[in-house]
């Protein structure tokens, strides 16, 4: 809990800071001419963070206090077109180029002088270390309960069980009241003329043994039916399985917010049976630069740091430095566990059939923590194979099948078995997609 508190404290601090910054920026945004808020926007829009950060080297140099190092005039020329500047024989420019191993910066002819000045203003502002403010504690501040879902579920269970206990208690009390009343009446000698109800009359006719047996068997049968249903639908089915992963990777952020194509990381999905968890060098394509320091007080995000640790990589050195000699593995927890006895091939589904990843994996782009969406039961596979049509028209592999279908349609017209709603309709099941050794061998 202390940790959680500490965390929320940090979050609060950051939020306050953000509010402060926003206020400043909003205010300055009203002003005419170059301003830092526009500069920040441009800095991100133009993709500067891919190579530059304020206080550290990424691909290019750290930009802290760059305006103090170079003149504004020179900077304007350099940023606009550093190639031209170098060709003009500018000694500083050529020296800089050589210092950075001949890695040329992009040309930004599209930026106006004012825009560049805005960026420089932003850099100036960002170069000043943020004042060390101790965030005030305030009750009623928004704090995100990350495990809220878990609690709500437990609460529900607790409420339901309390309710049950209360119900039972009520029933017992009711019975108690009745028997007490009867007892009182008995002792008082009041004879109650009980008139048996019609229902009771009927019930008394039933043999109690048979009745008991009947009730027991009904209960037994229902339990059995439930057990069977449970066995069929639940045992070994890991739908909703969302284990904690060694790196708190968020698909919601990457695939959702940032809109990174699934195939960028799961690159083998089109030609291999496995979509494959990306190797860490794929992560490094972005995360060599993207370190999310802005969220962690200038520290590298602890989750991203895990990538560096695994690769034994030190981001403070030149980024093209090779990874260190003591790498460690990232042991992801497998979520989709098909048993060995079934063969599944991603290429067949993602490439040939052209399915969307989400069809089986669910709204991954909304999942903060990835979970299993489908049941992965055979019935689920079969269902889809029954319904899905094969695109025989656009894949030459099915040319013969297509020809047969067309011929049959010509011959039989609307009665052709290949036709449905006036279109060629051949499902996977029609071409043997339900056969055992399509998946089991």
């Amino acid at each position, binding site marked *: 809990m202390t940790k959680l508190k500490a965390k929320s404290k940090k979050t609060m601090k950051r939020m306050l800071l953000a509010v402060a910054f926003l206020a400043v920026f909003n205010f300055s945004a009203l002003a005419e001419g170059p301003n830092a808020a526009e500069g920040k926007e441009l800095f991100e829009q133009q993709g500067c963070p891919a190579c530059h950060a304020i206080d550290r080297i990424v691909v290019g140099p750290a930009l802290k206090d760059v305006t103090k190092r170079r003149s504004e005039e020179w900077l304007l020329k350099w940023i606009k077109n550093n190639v031209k500047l170098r060709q003009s024989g500018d000694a500083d420019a050529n020296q800089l180029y050589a210092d950075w191993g001949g890695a040329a910066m992009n040309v930004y002819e599209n930026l106006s002088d004012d825009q560049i000045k805005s960026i420089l203003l932003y850099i100036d502002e960002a170069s000043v270390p943020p004042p060390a403010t101790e965030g005030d504690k305030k009750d009623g501040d928004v704090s995100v309960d990350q495990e809220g879902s878990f609690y709500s579920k437990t609460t529900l269970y607790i409420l339901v069980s309390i309710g049950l206990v209360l119900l039972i208690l009520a029933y017992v009390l009711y019975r108690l009241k009745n028997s007490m009343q009867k007892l009182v009446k008995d002792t008082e000698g009041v004879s109650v003329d009980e008139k048996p109800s019609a229902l009771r009359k009927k019930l008394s006719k039933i043999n109690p043994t048979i009745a008991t047996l009947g009730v027991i068997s009904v209960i037994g049968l229902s339990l059995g039916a439930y057990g069977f249903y449970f066995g069929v639908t639940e*045992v*070994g089915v*890991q739908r909703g399985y969302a*284990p904690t992963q060694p790196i708190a990777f968020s698909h919601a952020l990457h695939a959702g917010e940032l809109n990174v194509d699934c195939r960028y990381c799961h690159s*083998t999905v*089109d*030609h*291999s*049976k*496995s979509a*494959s*968890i*990306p*190797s*860490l*060098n*794929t992560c490094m394509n972005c995360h060599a630069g993207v370190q999310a320091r802005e969220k962690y007080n200038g520290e590298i995000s602890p989750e991203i740091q895990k990538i560096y640790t*695994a*690769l034994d990589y030190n981001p403070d050195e030149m980024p093209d430095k*090779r*990874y260190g*000699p003591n*790498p460690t*593995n*990232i*042991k*992801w*927890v*497998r979520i989709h*566990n098909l*048993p*060995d*006895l079934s*063969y599944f*091939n*991603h*290429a*067949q589904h993602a*490439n*040939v059939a052209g399915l969307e990843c989400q069809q089986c994996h669910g709204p991954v782009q909304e999942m903060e923590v990835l979970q299993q969406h489908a049941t992965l039961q055979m019935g689920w596979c079969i269902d889809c194979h029954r319904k899905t049509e094969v695109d025989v028209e*656009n*894949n*030459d*592999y099915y*040319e*013969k*099948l297509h*020809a*047969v*279908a067309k011929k049959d349609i010509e011959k039989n017209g609307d009665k052709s078995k290949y036709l449905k709603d006036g279109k060629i309709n051949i499902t996977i099941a029609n*071409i*043997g997609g339900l*056969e*055992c*050794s*399509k998946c*089991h*061998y």
Partner: protein
Amino acid sequence: MANKTTYWRGEEELKKTPEFLESAKNEFHESLPLDEVFSENNFELSSSRRDFLKFFGFSVTAVALAACNTTPVKKAIPYLVKPEEVTPGVANYYNSTCGACSSACGIQVKVREGRPIKIDGNPLSYSGRGLCASGQASILSLYDTERLDGPMKGNTKTEWDEADNTIKAKLASAKKIALITETIHSPSSLSVINDFVTTYPTQHIVFDPISYSGIIEANKVGFGKAVVPSYNFAIAKVIVSFGADFLGTWISPVEFSKDYIKNRIPVDGQKMSRHYQFESTLSMTGTNADIRVPMKQSNEAIYLASLFNLVAKKLGATQIPIANQIELAGNTLNNAANDLLTNKGASLVISNSNNPEVQQIVNGLNMMLENYGKTIDLTKHSNQYKGIDTEMEAFVSELEKGNYDAVIFWNSNPVYSYHNSEKLSKALSKAGMVVSLSGTKDETSELAHYICPDNHYLESWGDAEPKKGQLQLVQPTISPVFNTRQAQISLLVWANKAQKPEVDPFAGKQIMGVKYDTSIYYTYMKSVWSTKYGVQTEEQFNKALHDGVFSIEIPSDSMVSYQITASSLANGVPSKASGNDSIDLVLYQNVGIKEGNNANNPWLQELPDPVSKVTWDNYIAIPKALAEKNKINNGDLVKVKSSSFTLDSIPVLIQPGQANNTVSIALGYGRKGKVAEKGKFEKIGKNVYPFVSLASGHRQWMNNGVSIEKIEGSYELAMTQTHHTIEGRDILREATEKDFLANNAAGNDMARPHMYTVWEKHEYKRDGHPGHYWAMAIDLNACTGCGACVVSCSIENNVPVVGREEVRRRREMHWIRIDRYFAFENTDKVAYLPNTDSNFEDGFITKEKGLAAIDKKESSSGGDFSHYENVKTIHQPVMCQHCDQAPCETVCPVLATTHSTEGLNQMTYNRCIGTKYCANNCPYKVRRFNWFRYNDNDKFDFFFNNDLGKMVINPDVTVRTRGVMEKCSMCVQRIQEGKLKAKRERRQLNDGEIQMACQRTCPTNAIVFGDLNDKESEVSKLYRNKRSYHLLEELNVQTSVKYLTKIRNI
């Protein structure tokens, strides 16, 4: 009209012994040992109701408890930095060179996620697209737990630096060093040796366990060229082989098989080649011969001289002055001479003899027949065997005198394979230092002071030149599994010539730290190639590496004239033919185990010998006549005695086809060392190298004048020959070439039986299915019986090894088996059923009638068993026939075996509950039941029982568990993969694109697989071939495998 020949697989089948009939009757060898199990647990089988309830309750509880397990958490570990060429789930293929034997066939290695899992032949290589059984199996030696993990000083582990320093110090002070290797034909390795020899006073001695020094010596004397020539079987129209098992073990069997078969497929209007085989042991090659003549081994020279004289006489040339001329019944020798003469320049005479004098007669014959420069090439000669036996003899006697300060063994294990190993090991103790580069602890490295383990060939860089001008490359397909170092680097390090390249050629490409940088030898090899072959640019080298092969022009120099006169050839011919008074012991190589280097490979041990079908043992093969004379039966133990060595006991196998007065034992068994220590492969056969005799310093694979003596006891050989019997039903077709030329359907033109169906309303109809229709065709003419398909199938499909004990119980798991059938060739002494209607029932000869007739005639033959000396043989590979109306499918109560629209008989393991009804109902006996869990089971301590061995498992195929049925799936994983590839590329599937594992490795292309719905496919054409037939067509099960009638050129 049915095939009138009566075929049989073993004598018990021929004689219908009560035991055989009993075992043939039952689908399974023995009933389940329930009594034993129950009595062990104090239960009685005749259990009461209470017992039943106990069992029932117990099982339900057990199942319930087992189901309470939480699902295990599985981890997935991606690459940190993924090598560019690796895609998880997709195999890469690399061309390389096989290191299983000296033949050095080109191979393609299939690598999945960085581990090699399958080897097949490289079609670009000289050896063709096929690969033999031992080549296939050699991948397992990579994942052998018996490999050494790092250098050893005696029996203790040491460090490379320590070993290097001590060895270097000793070498520096040594006055005479010996380097013993098997034949090395790698140009770079030879250059390494040269570097070593120039640094230290070293003598390089080549010792081949099976040497061809007789041939080399004869060529040296006759032509001035001390080489083994290249033989071109592809253009040989007549082949006369004296004991040379050229399809199985002789020099370069894969290449020879590939070439041999080119003239063996009967095509209308084209003559087949004719193959004569003179031999004592019934070899695999002998089983494929058109005319096989049983010959007493010690009379080989007389046979050869007689043939020489017959040819010489007809040519008017000088004859060899010999006293005896062999006359054979039926004028066979004369026929052979005539055939040879009519095919001058397109014939071939070869001999397995290692006696130079005998080989000189062979050379003389080939010279007369003008075969040099045509079928025999001395210029582009073979490099595969270079060992000269006399050099080894000289070395051993020098060693005995203590004249060597250091002895280094590289890829050589003479303490096992040298005939006088006792003498050698004693002499070795006089050497100052013994170093072995062996990767495992074998008989020789056990005596070494230092073992510096070599990499496996799949972990190494290297090259090879199996034939002059035919270069091949070896490339690593996996980082070294253990702390081993390539032998070449060891030698370079010791010679102070190991130079690390200035720029690491693999910079950024190696993820795992490889301790001994392979780049040392890689750059060394490249410099050799650049100076020697002009392969200078990276592009040229990479092209050669990609192809795996590289050939250079060899100028053919003018033939040196033959130096030998006919009269001098008489030296090698004994004056008197040996007869009934003595017994020859012939030593031969088994097709799987060969010289014994791969003896601890369970795949090879479980591969049935192509001829005897014995697994897991060697045995003494004796002829029927000798057995009858000495009252020896199958499985008896005998003592074998020669003048120099006595083998205490070895089990007997009465081998049809074994020449009278000869016995044969396979070499390569009885390995000792660490292999035996662990007990796993202990007692696998007997070592018979000590029986090797010498003829003028050359080792002879025979021993004249041995005596055999029956001793107490018996031993059951694990023999598969009568397993899965089809009970004499007519499943073989054969004809002679003469008949075939007259009628292409000869032997196969019987009236087709009337078809009845028991499933009238459920007839399986392929019409209307526009998809694929998979089918297979197997040419009985092309199948040599080598067994490569059996091993290939086992590797591809994760077929478990079950061990000797289980094979005895008829529980071998091979999905494909090669049935070997014998039939008597000489029908004078044996009865055959006359082709009269009275002997047919429903158009077929019943087994009872056929066999009874043979039995009757035999008992009246008065103790003459010479007809057993010669049998004709057919090899028939049988796997699941994928019947369209499959009997197995209709009896499965749980629909675990069903039919696909593509014509496959599918087996779904997870549905199977093990009733075994399907196996009972299969007419072809191709279903295999998992009696045990063969993985992670200490009772089956083969590669499936350790993590390293499991690396070879094919990840696309389920490993089956106990209690389920399995069988040939027609490599459905390959079909699916091939289809998917076509679908991904949005194109039609090409014929031949999908190859079965058995088909892919077959050196002779005997198996063809394809789509019958494609009328132009190879398999469709073969289905229309008039030679083709279905097995047991009359059952109307509509198989998807067709066989092609065997045609013999007699």
